[in-house]
Structures are given as structure tokens and as C-alpha cells.
């Protein structure tokens, strides 16, 4: 795969899109520089969503700050609260009960499922394939109901607390049974969809070779998560996380780094998530779900990395008399913006939004650490 080079010298015109656009699920501004409908360069402006969560977290009690991290993102809200709790747990040396760990993994994987389904549905919508989009949204509804059953809310569930999970999120026999049944339903539906999707020659001809991100470039741009794995690099932080020690799963990779690889990769990863949830349901240990037996003390800056649906999530803060200090959150989309700008180059402008979508953007996650420079 040869490299794509931005050719700034032949720009004919600039086409800005945003901040409100049907292909974007969130506000951002993107300027495409085109020559005869071929994108030569793209510039994504973020900061539209800047709300200052880290500033609000500064000085809050750690429990409160944890629940606030959930409001960073409505798609991967559980990942944020999980990682935030995990940061404090690492710093304070809190032992998490096995059962709580399993429930966190189940929630994490359910969230990965709903995020990947949203990605597939959104991708199909940007392709203007309404039918596939609707089919995936219909499947996604199963996951959303499961999340609502466990967490009590469809979007922000607040599952993790310091030392374990919230009592509401404990899984009894009935819930486990429903989880198990719905996983079967989900797998059946997803298998059907993926077969239809891969065998649809019109869709395949439309997305093969579009928005290519070469492996070399992906590593150079420090891309994370599924977008990196779709270029053929088997790098998944879940293999190193102690939470996933008991689970057996494969790291899925795809060779090409184009839209097709990305979409297929998300679909295949969903099967792995279903596999992990099945293992968790089968082996969930008995015992308490929260460890209240810990003490608060001041710590230096603590760091924690986990793998979330979109890539590597980084939280770090120091604790000072039970309050959060020097909070930094770095989300996967921050690293992937370069990839989005790069993937557009050399494609039709009709595909440009698709190339951005293929990197799974989540600008609401991203817009916190950025300082807006006023004119």
C-alpha cells in the first residue's frame, strides 16, 4: 500500500461541513479541500464540544468525580466510570471482589457491543443504506434493554463504584438467564446480518478500498483501538488487563485498513464480546460485589489505561484528602483524529464523511483537554 500524500498545491475549493450535518452524530466542523470532487486535504476542528469536565472534577470528592466522568460520553460512559474507579483503586490499593470484576467485564463488553452496533448502524446510514442501518439498530435495541435491565438506565448506568459495583447492578439468577437468552438471540441476529452484509456485492464494491489507512501511517499517527487493529496490528490492551485474565478471546485483526476492514472488524469483534459475556455468565463466582474495606490516603499521580470500544482510554489524577487533583483524561478519539484527516485524502467527497466515520469518532469524549484560543 503506497502512502497517500496531501497535495495542497492543487486545491480547487474548500467545502466546509458542520457543525450540524446528517452524517455526523455530534457537532464538529470539517473543512474539505477538494479538486474535482477528490479530497486533497481535510481539517477537522474540534473544541465545539468543550465543556470543561476535568476542571469540574478538580477538587471534587473522588466518588463524586467518578460519577461525573460518566457524563463525558454517552456512548462509552461505562468505560469512563470504570477507568476512573480503577485509577483510584490502583492508587489506594483496593482489592476488588471477583464477582464485581465479572460484572464490570460484562458491562464493559455489553457496552462494546452497543458501541460497535452503533458504529455499524451509523456507517450504514452514512452509506445511505437505510435498511441495514435499521436492522443493526434493531439488534442494538436488545443490548440497550440488557443495559437498562442491569444498570437501570439506557445510557448512563453508573455501574462501577469505588471497590466494586453498585448494589443495583448485582446479577441474580433471573438476570443471568435473560442475559444468556439474549446473547443467543443477539448472536443469531448478528450472524444473519454479517452474512447479508459481506455477501452484498453492491455494498462491498462501495466500501472496499475506500478511506485506506496504511499500517505504517497508522503506527506513525499513534492510532489506537479497532482502527489500528483494522490495519493489521494485533494490539489490544485487554490482553494485558488483569480483569480479563480469566477470559479466553481472540484479538481480531483485518488486513486493509479501509472502510470494509473497519466495518467487518467491528462485526467480528462483537462475536468475541458475546463469547466473553458467555464465559462470564457461566463462571460468575459467588460472593460480595463491593469491597468497603479500604482507607483513603493522599497519593501521587495515578495512571490507568484500559481498552474501551474505541481504543485506549487513559485517566490519571492524584488524590489529596479524598479529593481529585491534576486530572487528565485522554480518550481514543484524540489519537484517531489524525487518522480521520488522513483517511479522507484521495477519496470522493461523498465518501469523505464515511472515512471520518470509519475511525469511530467521538468528539464529545475528545473535547476536554483542549484549550480554546479565542480570536
Amino acid at each position: 500500500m503506497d502512502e497517500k500524500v496531501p497535495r495542497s498545491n492543487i486545491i480547487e475549493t474548500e467545502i466546509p461541513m458542520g457543525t450540524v450535518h446528517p452524517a455526523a452524530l455530534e457537532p464538529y466542523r470539517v473543512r474539505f479541500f477538494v479538486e474535482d470532487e477528490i479530497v486533497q486535504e481535510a481539517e477537522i476542528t474540534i473544541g465545539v464540544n468543550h465543556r470543561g469536565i476535568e476542571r469540574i472534577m478538580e477538587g471534587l470528592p473522588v466518588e463524586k468525580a467518578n460519577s461525573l466522568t460518566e457524563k463525558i460520553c454517552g456512548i462509552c460512559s461505562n468505560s469512563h466510570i470504570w477507568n476512573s474507579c480503577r485509577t483510584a483503586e490502583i492508587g489506594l490499593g483496593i482489592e476488588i471482589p471477583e464477582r464485581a470484576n465479572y460484572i464490570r467485564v460484562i458491562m464493559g463488553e455489553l457496552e462494546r457491543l452497543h458501541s460497535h452496533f452503533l458504529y455499524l448502524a451509523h456507517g450504514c446510514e452514512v452509506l445511505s443504506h437505510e435498511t441495514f442501518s435499521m436492522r443493526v439498530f434493531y439488534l442494538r435495541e436488545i443490548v440497550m434493554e440488557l443495559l437498562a435491565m442491569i444498570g437501570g438506565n439506557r445510557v448512563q448506568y453508573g455501574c462501577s463504584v469505588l471497590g466494586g459495583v453498585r448494589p443495583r447492578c448485582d446479577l441474580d439468577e433471573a438476570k443471568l438467564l435473560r442475559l444468556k437468552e439474549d446473547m443467543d438471540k443477539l448472536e443469531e441476529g448478528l450472524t444473519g446480518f454479517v452474512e447479508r452484509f459481506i455477501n452484498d456485492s453492491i455494498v462491498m464494491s462501495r466500501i472496499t478500498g475506500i478511506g485506506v489507512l496504511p499500517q505504517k501511517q497508522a503506527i506513525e499517527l499513534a492510532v489506537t483501538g479497532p482502527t489500528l487493529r483494522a490495519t493489521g496490528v494485533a494490539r489490544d490492551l485487554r490482553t494485558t488487563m488483569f480483569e480479563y485474565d480469566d477470559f479466553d478471546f481472540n484479538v481480531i485483526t483485518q488486513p486493509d485498513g479501509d472502510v470494509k476492514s473497519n466495518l467487518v472488524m467491528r462485526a467480528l469483534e462483537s462475536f468475541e464480546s458475546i463469547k466473553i459475556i458467555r464465559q462470564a455468565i457461566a463462571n460468575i463466582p459467588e460472593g460480595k460485589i463491593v469491597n468497603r474495606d479500604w482507607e483513603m490516603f493522599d497519593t501521587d499521580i495515578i495512571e490507568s489505561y484500559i481498552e474501551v470500544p474505541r481504543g485506549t482510554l487513559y485517566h490519571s489524577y492524584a488524590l489529596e484528602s479524598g479529593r481529585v487533583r491534576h486530572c487528565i483524561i485522554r480518550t481514543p478519539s484524540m489519537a484517531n483524529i489524525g487518522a480521520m484527516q488522513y483517511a479522507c485524502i484521495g477519496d470522493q467527497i461523498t465518501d469523505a464523511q464515511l472515512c471520518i466515520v470509519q475511525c469511530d469518532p467521538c468528539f464529545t469524549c475528545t473535547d476536554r483537554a483542549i484549550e480554546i484560543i479565542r480570536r
Partner: protein
Amino acid sequence: MFSNTVIYSILAAIITILVCFIISTLLPGIERKYIHARIQQRIGPIVIAPGIMAPIKFMFKENVKVESPVPGLYKVLPIICFIVVMCLLIALTPQAFAIPALSSLVAIVGLLKVEEICYVLMGALSKSVMSVRMPFPDQIKGAVHNNATRSFIEDISSRRSLRMITYGSFPLYLALFAPVTQARSIFLEEIVAYQQVHGPFLFTVSGAIAAIVFFIGYMIILNEYPFSIIKAKCDVIEGPYMEYASKYRTIVYLTRGFFMMVLGALFSVLFLGIPPLITSWSILIVVLVSLVLVFMMGILSAFSPVFTNRQLLPTILGTTLLGILSIVLGLL
């Protein structure tokens, strides 16, 4: 006696047009509810919603100032489109066969071309809020290419319509001229007469191929997915129609349904030899043909993504070759 015949035939033509118009308002709803919604496993809107109720609703909306360099021309364009479609239907009624200027294939091709040129002008004149006019600090210190020319998204749409004029509508015109090879005349009257004697053109080899070509051309000229590049939602949102509000949007909505119906009538005239006429049962066949075309279009569009230039060119080339094949077969 003579004047009576003229009055009756004019009356019949008017009633035919009215009936076709009323039926045509149902077509977008039928496509949305019975095809798209059924395929997508949902209930969908009521049948009258997209075709009748939405236009009526827009009629009662405030008439806002249109953002356009030439607002007068921009507002006239949908009316021109509507009149063009109406002229097409008038040309197809048997009463109009007496007018040689209107009832030849050349006139029909010309009218269709007017429709296409309207899209170009609409796209060029519309300056919607959704792209350049969105108040956002784009050209600031630190941004790349601060001095590049800036285009509205409708400008791309306009350029695409031009491209569609040059090669996109080839299939439809080829299909229109395929029956000529059999009837040896470009006048609709003789094409109809020939088919009433020799049976419908559709059931010959050349006719069947031409029908397929016509169907693809029909989808291209109606801008339905997958050929809806000039109003693709993923980049140009609604393309040429972005700025129309209230009454003008009503006309845009009505034109779409009417155009579906008229193209159906065109098919039945050229390929079945049955002109739309209210006084005979043949009108039912015309309605049936337009319904079948709408159904086929709905099914195809529900299962296909939007095509970019990259897929459009080979598709249209292939269809054009098929069209040439059908003409050659007809001539043999």
C-alpha cells in the same frame, strides 16, 4: 360538431391530467410505507403523509426570504419543473397527438433536458446555512489554507447535475429511442399505432432490454438511491432543494410524485402502446405500470447504498451499452 369534439377532447385531456395528478400524490407514500417500511420491519407513516399531507402543510408555512443571489429565478425554477412535467403528460395523452410539435420523442427529450438543467440552476443558486454560511470561525490563525475559495455544498451538487446531464441521462434517452427502431417514426401516435397492430414492444428481445435500460434511467432522473448523488444525504444533504420553503417546497414535493407517474405513463406509451386516457380502461394499465415501476424502484433503493462517481460511471456505461444493444437488435 367540430368544436364539440375539440372541447370534449380538451376536457378529456384535462380530466386525465387531474386524475393522474391525484394518483401521483399517493406514490411517494406507497413507496415509503409499503416498500421501505415493510423491508425495514417497521410500521411506517400513513400513505397520504409524504405525498399529500406534507405538501399541504408546507403551503401553510411562512414564506421566508430565500438566501440566493437571484431569489426570483430560484423561486421560479420549481414551477418550471412542474410545468415541464405537466407538458410531458399532455404530450402523452392521445388528444395531443394532433400537435406535431409536442407529440414527438424529440419534444419529450427536450422537456426532460429542461428538467435536468433546472437542477443545475437550483444547485448553483441555493446558498443554504448548512455549510459556508454557518457562523463558525473557520479562517483563523493556525487554520490551513486560509485563502482557499469556499464553496457551498449545493455548488458540488450543481456540478454533479452538470455531470449527470453529460452522461447520466444517456440510458433514459437511449431507451426512449429504442421503440423508434421498430415503429420507424419518432411520433408518439405512430409508435402507439404500430404497437396496437404488432403487439407491445416490451415483449420483443430488444424491447425487454430497453425496458431494463429505461428503468435504470428512470431511477437516475428521479434521483432515487443508489443514483441520488446530486442530493446524497451524506454530503450535500438535500442538494438543489436546500433553500425551498413553504409554497415552493410544496411544488417540489408534488413534482416528485407527479414525475414518477408521468414517467410511468411514458413507459406505457412507448413500450406497451397504451396512452393515458380517462375515457377508456387503459388508464388503469397506466396506473398499474407506474405502480410497478415505483415498487421496483423502492425495492432496489432500499437495498442499495448511494453510489459515488466511482460506481456511477461504470454503471451508467454498462447501461448505455445495453441501450445501444437494444437499439441494434431493434434495427436488425
